[in-house]
């Protein structure tokens, strides 16, 4: 039993650390002797410490597989999972650091919601290297359950409660479809296998004809539907804007980034190793195009600050899916580059939004004259928006460049032009935000408070990455190339 300790030590650590934090938060926040102290920053700092220690453990772990029970490798850590595990941990650390000041400003004293942010990272660490469909499902579900709870963590807000309820009900359906498709009914019933290596041997060159293959087709479709819902891809995106709007802003940032990374990494493994073929590729091509178009058009009519970012997230899922749809090493590499840059931009954008909301900025119209009152914030927000829009020489352009080139390289000559056109259309609402900040007068003049130190540091790091990655992309390019190669080997 102790042989497993090494292979899953990061997961064991984070589970125990969150339990210790939860007990600490519950015991001392309800302590009459200490006068019921608010523990958001205390638990937040300890949570951040746990995530940084987890990062150290995950980064330093030897690359191992675990043979367990029936001599199947249920989890396989290789170079690609290594990178894909580091990224959600960085996102979690960024999210926690956003929470301190924003939760205090909103008088949101729920230290347990900060504990619930590192908890799904444990599931992500298990989901990313999962090499069996049952292991994959068992890792997805705890992650989803934590998301439902943290979306509703702001108990006094009806929007947050609605967001959590909606997420729970709508999230249960794709979980059921995913289970129906891959684990219990279709794929297992048709092939007798749940392990990805076995599925690869059965499905390679398999033509979908006949009764048995219709079960496989339904299974693959169910896996795709279940996964696409969880990453807010069109046509399964409708829950996202309401839930992103209702959840607390740091939670929205976390929901925008973390599940997309883990599920994209897992889907890469499922598709490349297990069951890739024309069926899945066509599904993802359609979803990529639809997501890009909807992301570009739907955000135009939005008037609040958070909702365009939610639609932008849907659009970026489409761009990232482009790389995935290709099914080539270059496609996977561009997917990884896209995910990394998207995570940085989203952390940057959502770190500024809570700082603005402290001064009751909720609508886009309230951003007027931000450049006069807080020029650094305005400049940073504008850089992030331009990066989202794909304007060179920022990181967003770098990401779309590689994605569209990968699409052209695999012969998807329709996908790339659609991506370019939707990028151009989408620039409207990104540049509109910058125009509001620099050229418009606000509806009511608001005194902007200085940003806290933690958010400032986070913004400095992400902004410097966004501005420096295009002139010097080699480290990211080499790293992602290595990760993509290991997916195929």
């Amino acid at each position, binding site marked *: 039993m102790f042989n*497993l300790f090494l292979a899953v030590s990061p997961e064991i650590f984070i589970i125990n*650390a969150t339990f210790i934090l939860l007990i600490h938060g519950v015991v001392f926040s309800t302590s009459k002797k200490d006068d019921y102290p608010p523990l958001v920053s205390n638990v*937040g700092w*300890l949570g951040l410490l746990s995530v940084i220690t987890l990062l150290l*453990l995950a980064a330093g*772990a030897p690359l191992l597989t*675990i043979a367990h029970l029936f001599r199947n490798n249920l989890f396989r850590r290789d170079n690609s999972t290594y990178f894909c595990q580091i990224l959600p941990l960085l996102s979690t650390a960024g999210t926690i650091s956003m929470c301190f000041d924003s939760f205090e400003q909103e008088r949101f004293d729920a230290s347990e919601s900060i504990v619930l942010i590192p908890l799904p990272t444990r599931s992500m660490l298990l989901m990313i290297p999962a090499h069996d469909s049952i292991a994959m499902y068992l890792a997805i579900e705890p992650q989803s359950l934590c998301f439902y709870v943290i979306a509703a963590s702001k108990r006094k807000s009806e929007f947050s409660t609605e967001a959590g309820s909606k997420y729970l009900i709508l999230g249960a359906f794709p979980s059921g479809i995913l289970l129906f498709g891959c684990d219990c009914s279709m794929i297992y019933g048709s092939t007798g296998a749940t392990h990805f290596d076995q599925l690869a041997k059965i499905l390679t060159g398999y033509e979908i004809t006949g009764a048995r293959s219709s079960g496989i087709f339904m299974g693959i479709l169910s896996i795709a539907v279940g996964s696409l819902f969880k990453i807010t891809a069109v046509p399964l995106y409708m829950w996202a804007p309401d839930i992103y709007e209702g959840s607390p802003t740091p939670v929205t940032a976390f929901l925008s980034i973390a599940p997309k990374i883990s599920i994209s990494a897992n889907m890469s493994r499922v598709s490349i190793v297990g069951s890739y073929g024309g069926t899945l590729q066509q599904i993802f091509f359609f979803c990529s195009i639809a997501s890009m178009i909807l992301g570009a058009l739907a955000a135009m009519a939005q008037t609040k600050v958070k909702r365009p970012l939610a639609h932008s997230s849907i659009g970026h899922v489409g761009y990232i899916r482009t790389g995935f749809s290709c099914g080539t090493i270059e496609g996977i590499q561009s997917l990884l580059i896209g995910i990394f840059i998207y995570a940085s931009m989203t952390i940057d954008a959502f770190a500024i939004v809570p700082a603005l909301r402290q001064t009751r900025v909720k609508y886009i119209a309230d951003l007027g004259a931000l450049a006069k009152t807080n020029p650094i914030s305005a400049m940073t927000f504008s850089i992030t928006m331009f990066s989202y829009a794909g304007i060179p020489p920022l990181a967003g352009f770098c990401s779309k460049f590689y994605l569209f080139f990968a699409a052209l390289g695999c012969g998807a000559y329709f996908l790339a032009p659609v991506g370019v056109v939707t990028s151009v259309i989408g620039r409207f609402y990104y540049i509109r935000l910058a125009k509001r900040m620099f050229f418009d007068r606000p509806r009511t003049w608001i005194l902007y408070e200085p940003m806290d130190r933690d958010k400032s540091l986070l913004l400095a790091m992400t902004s410097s990455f966004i501005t420096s990655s295009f002139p010097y992309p080699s480290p990211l390019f080499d790293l992602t190339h290595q990760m993509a190669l290991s997916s195929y080997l």
Partner: protein
Amino acid sequence: MNTDITASVKPEYPVVDRNPPFTKTVANFNTLDYLRLSTITGVSVTVGYLSGIKPNIRGPSMVTGGLIGLMGGFMYAYQNSAGRLMGFFPNDAEVARYKK
């Protein structure tokens, strides 16, 4: 129950033990491992203390931070020690000790 662990990547250094048991790995802790453990624990205790100043729970916060740090530091030291035995990290001392 088969709990065999195999490496995804070929080890760069000589393999002393492909699948070292818990007791052997802990016994193989060197000075650097103990330094890692104590540093992570020390930093965690400090973070716990500093974060506990505002809500006025310095002591309990230090204990919580210490527990987290001790656990994390031990696991980090364990990873490094096992990595050396498995041949992933430089292991001249282990080779000299176990492969005389």
